[in-house]
């Protein structure tokens, strides 16, 4: 099965990290990504720009409305994702637990829906 691992963390808090802390985090992410590429679980993954760069689009009655900012204000924001292949939810959650941000934020594990 495929799962999307959504990485949520507090942007302000992550932004306040020292350069050394950020470099360490970066390195950890690199090592984690390498390891799941090697194990065959990795399908895709990216980090996102901050929510201050987000734009939300809605179409109502045929009219497109474009607004600044994310869809909802929350304590933690979507910061990145991995798309992984895993045998089952247990494997997916154990991959999620190894994402460095799991220690400071939270990872939502969502199965990919298949239409056949």
């Amino acid at each position, binding site marked *: *099965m495929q*799962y999307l691992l959504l990485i949520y963390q507090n942007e302000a808090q992550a932004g306040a990290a020292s350069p050394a802390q950020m470099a360490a985090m970066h390195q950890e992410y690199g090592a984690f990504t390498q390891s799941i590429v090697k194990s065959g679980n990795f399908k895709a993954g990216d980090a996102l720009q901050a929510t201050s760069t987000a734009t939300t689009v809605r179409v109502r009655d045929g009219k497109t409305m474009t607004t600044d900012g994310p869809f909802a204000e929350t304590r933690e924001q979507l910061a990145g994702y991995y798309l992984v292949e*895993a*045998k*089952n*939810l*247990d494997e*997916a*959650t*154990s991959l999620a637990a190894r994402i460095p941000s799991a220690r400071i934020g939270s990872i939502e*594990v969502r*199965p990919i*829906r298949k239409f*056949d």
Partner: protein
Amino acid sequence: MPATDSRRSQESRDGGCPVPEVERVFRAEATRVLATLISLLGDFDRAEDAAQDAFSAALEQWTETGIPGNPRAWLVAAGRNRAIDRLRRHRRFLSKRQELAHIAAIEAQSQLATGIASEEESRLQDDLLRLIFTCCHPALAQEARVALTLRTVCGLTTEEIASVFLLPVPTMAQRLVRAKAKIREAGIPYEVPADELLPERLDGVLAVIYLVFTQGYAPASGASLTREDLCREAIRLGRLLHAVMPAHPGPDALLALMLLHDARRDARAGPEGDIILLEQQDRSLWDRRQIEEGLALVEASLRHPGRPGAYAVQAAIAALHMRAATFAETDWPQIAGLYEVLLRLYPTPVIELNHAVAVAMVDGPERGLMLLDAIAARGTLANYHPLPAARAEMLRRLGCQSEAIEAYREALALASLEPVRRHLVDRLTELGGSR
């Protein structure tokens, strides 16, 4: 109809089997058959349909030919075959390729499971254990775990489970449908977790079993003091888990705890269903055999290396109660000491309450009241009737009549179990207070 009946009864004599006997055998085998069918079919709903089909087939055939030598294997085979038939019948919903893939998968699984035809008890145990771990998976909400375990592992009907939780039947049915859908769609595995996950997962399973037990031993509301069916199911699950994982700490302690509590069942309620407190219980009504079994398990559970688990300490406390020949001979200092151990290792407000009550038995009601007031001041047990009830008891023993009446009224406003309410009303009346 009469013609059929006489034919049936005639054939019963020639080796057929009467319907109630078929039903009895089916009920005894239902959970294990379902567990194996889920493992073969990989889907709860299809397995439930298949088990139902297998039962219909058994009703038809066993009443004619008698019960086969291995009814469980017969039922699994019948269920599996019916499931394959159903898949074929529903092929218009599936592509030919999908259908063949499904059937191939079922048959491959069945090859693996050929053991079910004969002696491989272990494989069936494994299926049952897998089923319990799946139903108690932490990705399911706690209430969904309990409901699913009661439905699938214990075989209670949706109506029965709805009545345990005081919920409308459609709400409970919806909860079960959602839980099964999550298992399927989120890929919750039908497996006993790997060793590194086992301790955490086992804790989750034990919590569900204990919740089933407490729902039976101390229901939150309703007319009767206990629900025997739930206690029995919880003990059955506890036995099963202990039998399969004898070396793991936890199952033995939980089983001991449940056996020891449940051994008092007949002494806990009077003929009218009224509460009889520990102090007034006729101890000759306690189930001696069950106590002996529980005591042996407590000792075993305390011998595991490492610090004792929460169930083991609670079971040790229950054991001290059971060992006392009379209420007056209860070893309260040791009980209070064990509650202190519990408080240090696994602090919860309820444990704190029980500790305060035990301390009051050693040091007197004044000290007990002080501890209870401290708990009440924090407000963590604000809606828990045993707290004001325990305060009321201390106040009564201290001779503070009006404050005791106040506390009993407070408890009464929070209690919804009928026998508990009657008990509180009796106490109020004794003190000359009205409701």
